[in-house]
């Protein structure tokens, strides 16, 4: 057994200071080293998500579109007032728009983020959950095809984007109504912004 070092004010302060300084140096350098790979990985994940929710395309045009001023869509958003649009073109023709949308109404206070692809007519091509920290085994099922797949091919103009409990047409996940509501909230936000962008004269 190692001999115990006698504690004095000086050596306690010094030891803790050295340890914390070494730890912060180590963390700082690891953070710097991983900053770029993390950004690259996030970008790659976003591009993968766009590819998943839209038909084949060869070029992308990304820009921000402000959300319509509907209190139901903007309440509790903090300083986020716009959504990221990614218009996809194949040989110069618009094949769809991927919208990175979000909701702060999830069970976990962390924002959920969803990439949703709209075909030019406003029909949902498909959706993919890109960020969520819901309860494992319950809310996390929002990313499963069984729940997520029900939006594909639906037009939110005729398909009521609320869970059945709230009078809509979306089948909620068993025991995760809050997570299901959050997904609906995010999709409504995307669709409303998509529609307002169209009526403001943007090409679909």
């Amino acid at each position, binding site marked *: *057994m*190692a*001999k*115990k*070092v*006698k*504690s*004095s004010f000086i*050596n*306690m302060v010094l*030891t*803790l200071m050295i*340890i*914390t300084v070494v*730890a912060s140096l*180590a*963390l700082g350098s*690891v*953070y710097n*080293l*991983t900053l770029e*790979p*993390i950004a690259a*990985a*996030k970008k*790659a*994940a976003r591009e993968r998500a766009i590819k998943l929710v839209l038909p084949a395309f060869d070029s992308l045009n990304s820009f921000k579109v402000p959300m319509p001023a509907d209190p139901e869509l903007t309440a509790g958003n903090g300083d986020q007032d716009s959504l990221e649009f990614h218009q996809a073109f194949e040989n110069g023709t618009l094949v769809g728009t991927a919208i990175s949308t979000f909701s702060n109404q999830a069970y976990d206070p962390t924002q959920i983020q969803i990439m949703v692809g709209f075909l030019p007519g406003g029909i949902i091509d498909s959706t993919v959950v890109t960020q969520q*920290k819901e*309860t*494992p*085994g*319950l809310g996390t099922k929002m990313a499963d095809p069984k729940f997520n797949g029900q939006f594909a091919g639906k037009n939110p103009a005729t398909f009521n984007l609320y869970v059945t409990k709230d009078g809509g047409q979306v089948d909620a996940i*068993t*025991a995760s109504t809050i997570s299901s509501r959050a997904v609906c909230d995010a999709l409504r936000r995307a669709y409303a912004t998509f529609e307002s962008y169209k009526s403001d004269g943007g090409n679909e």
Partner: protein
Amino acid sequence: MNQWTNFTKGFIKENAVFVLLLGLCPTLAVTSSAINGMGMGLATTFVLVCSNMVVTLVKSFIPDKVRIPAFIVIIASFVTIVELVMQAYVPALFDTLGIFIPLIVVNCLVLGRAEGFASKQSFISSLIDGLGMGLGFTFALTLLGSVREMLGNGSIFDVKFTTGDAILVFILQPGAFIVLGYLIAIINKLRKTA
């Protein structure tokens, strides 16, 4: 100490979850499926091995009265490093495990081994102890996760073996306590008769 005994004690004889009842907070929280349990176990093993190695190297410089804060800083640093490195180089794995990684800091198993073992033993012993205890912890979490996933979701390692819904309560928090209680009883029975 015989290093083989030192390594294997973590699996049954001094298993962190079933016998020492250490680190139960992450145990109960994340074991809703087998793969979650295994991932959490392996991440904890990595931190445990690293922190045991560093603690045993610096143990003779740390004044006795500030050893706990010193150990916590060491452990927290490793957890953050693991989190950043995983996020950068294995984003797919991080997507599955990301939410559990910060939980490792509060796992008293890691601090318990630093305080109770690594601060008194040699470098090699601490390394092997970390590895054995970590893998034993992984074994316990995987077992717990498997049972809960089988009963609660009708699948194991995400492979479905029933159609339709299973007994949902086993995925929920009460199920964690029920399954853990039964597993502890079974393991203790086996230990007594063995």
